[in-house]
């Protein structure tokens, strides 16, 4: 790390896509040595399927983290949403639009609660969303003793249909990602998220309503968790309260920071997050194909996240050198 590369430095997003390519190459080689083919259709499908669920959650998570906030309740929101979806659909294809609307409403409301408590009551988002998660968990555990509701076949397509090797759910996730990229770039409130996370005082001095910006980020984060809940319902064919036990929120945060978004806000983006999600999915698939113990993947995942953030921290440090008045070695 002491040597510095000449020429323009790679952007963080470029770096993360390069890392994704590297993981694909190394993973592909490892699988090939084992006598398999990582890029066989079945494996590609597996990889892409894995991206969609974490992808939805991570997109919303990117927005709140950009604002220097956090959402630990998304796993619970997704579980709740899957139940709202399945019970509202109740096996009737005609109820699907209503169910989707209900899910987005409920999940958006959860996000609004998180955002309002954090922005206006000054509660640390870690505590707010942890508390919200617990509240939802209590409700789910009390209200639902097992799977509930019934998802009609037509909506289950969302979970299983593919176009070529690409699952529809992954496509939808990428569409949402594209929409989020567009939102951050082209709408004022999206653009202001960088300012709010970067320096709330500067944002306020520039006339930005920081509280409202944070609130919107949380609402959208809740809604992407709702979308993840819809996907869960489509896959299981029913609503599942147990879904929260998978700690999806930690996966999502991992993908976001892996994608180069600063946990302290103000820097990063959804494009990086998608690459972060993809890296985690590729690793999972490689492990799967190589039949490595699934628990090894958790170990590796932990190491990868820490290493990635350590590298980003290093790059940040390099940039903050002050400019010299007297160059080193100049004779006095």
């Amino acid at each position, binding site marked *: 790390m002491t040597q510095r590369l000449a020429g323009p430095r790679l952007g963080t997003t470029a770096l993360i896509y390069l890392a994704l390519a590297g993981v694909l190459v190394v993973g592909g080689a490892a699988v090939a040595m084992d006598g398999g083919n990582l890029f066989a259709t079945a494996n590609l499908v597996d990889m892409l399927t894995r991206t969609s669920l974490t992808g939805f959650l991570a997109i919303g998570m990117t927005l709140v983290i950009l604002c220097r906030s956090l959402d630990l309740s998304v796993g619970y929101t997704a579980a709740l949403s899957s139940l709202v979806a399945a019970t509202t659909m109740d096996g009737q294809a005609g109820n699907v639009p209503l169910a989707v609307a209900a899910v987005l409403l409920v999940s958006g409301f959860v996000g609004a609660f998180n955002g309002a*408590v954090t922005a206006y*009551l*000054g*509660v*640390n988002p*870690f*505590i*707010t969303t*942890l*508390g*919200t*998660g*617990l*509240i*939802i*968990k*209590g*409700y789910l*555990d*009390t209200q639902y003793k097992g799977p509930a509701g019934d998802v009609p076949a037509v909506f289950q397509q969302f979970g299983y249909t593919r176009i070529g090797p690409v699952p529809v759910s992954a496509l939808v996730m990428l569409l949402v990602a594209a929409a989020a990229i567009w939102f951050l770039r082209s709408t004022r409130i999206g653009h202001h998220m960088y300012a709010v996370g970067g320096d709330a005082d500067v944002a306020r001095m520039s006339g930005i309503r920081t509280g409202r910006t944070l609130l919107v980020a949380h609402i959208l984060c809740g809604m992407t968790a709702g979308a993840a809940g819809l996907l869960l319902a489509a896959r299981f064919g029913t609503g599942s309260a147990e879904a929260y036990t998978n700690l999806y929120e*930690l996966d999502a*945060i*991992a993908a976001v*920071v892996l994608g180069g978004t600063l*946990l*302290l806000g103000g820097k990063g983006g959804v494009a990086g997050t998608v690459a972060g999600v993809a890296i985690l999915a590729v690793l999972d698939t490689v492990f799967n194909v190589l039949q490595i*113990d699934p*628990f*090894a*993947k*958790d*170990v*590796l*995942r*932990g*190491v990868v*996240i*820490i290493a990635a*953030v*350590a590298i980003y*921290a*290093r790059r940040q*440090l390099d940039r903050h050198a002050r400019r010299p008045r007297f160059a080193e070695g100049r004779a006095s």
Partner: protein
Amino acid sequence: MTRARELLARATNPTATVFILLVLVFAAVFAMNPGFFAGPSLMAFLKQAAPLVILAAGQYFVIVSGNFDLSVGALVGAQVVIAARLIDGEESRTVPVLIVMALFGIAVGLVNGLITTALKVQSFITTLGMLLVLYGAIRLWTGGAPTGSLSEAFRVPGRMGIEDVPVLGQIPWALLIMVALGAGAVLLMRTRFGRILLAAGDNERAAALSGARVDTARTLAFVLSGLSATVAGVLIGGFAGVSAQVGDGLEFTVITAVVLGGVVLGGGRGSVLAAMAGALVIEGLFTLFNQMALPATLRPAVQGAIIIAAVAYAARARARPVPTATATPTPS
């Protein structure tokens, strides 16, 4: 009049709030079940509460110095599994295995601390990564389900005590350990180390310019947290037996307890005694829920609502204008 105002000011001080909360919770417990304060049932309560109180003390050191430790739950689980596997029912191995566990706890804390301070990775990410690593590594090592069994001697601290004491019945070892470690924690905060920890959490720069080894102190805080998880692992393992799940989610309960004790995320504020009192409040609430025959499933919801309310209240109390003017003129 001024005395009354001073008392009121003290009562609204977040640190004092937890003791008032403690009294309220136990008053409610007493109102519902006057028999609770009979010796044996009180002792049983304290035996059960001891691990959380000890964990809260460990977490306090980390939080007050400005960090998080999300890995304690996974570490508790890991320690129990390690104990069962290494002891494997052999009494003679008890002490050597206890030493191994202590070393392991220290090592985990050291790694957390060094990654956070030397590599400048936010502790949230470091300890989240550690959580994943521990979770995966332990299951990898045991092939998914814990193997082996604990020795009788190992289980003594968690379930036994001084028997046949008048009025009280059994004085559990767990209680004595809790009191000893709690006293140790309070004393530790009065040493130079404790003072440096508080100063570093409050103003890292001022502490460093005063010559404090901030990074070392913070790393030691993680080590203390790792050790507290080790002790909690011994007590929980002894009390509840072997299961890899014992620690799941414990980190959030512990952080909740510490924050409920008026310790502010971000560091520099709060006392270790109040943090431990926060843990007793949480355990008291669980007892209260039991007596109210509140469905076990509803507990997280109440817990979540209380934590949000408590922190919002504390945030309001802090935001209120202070009695004496703090502004200083800063003419250029």
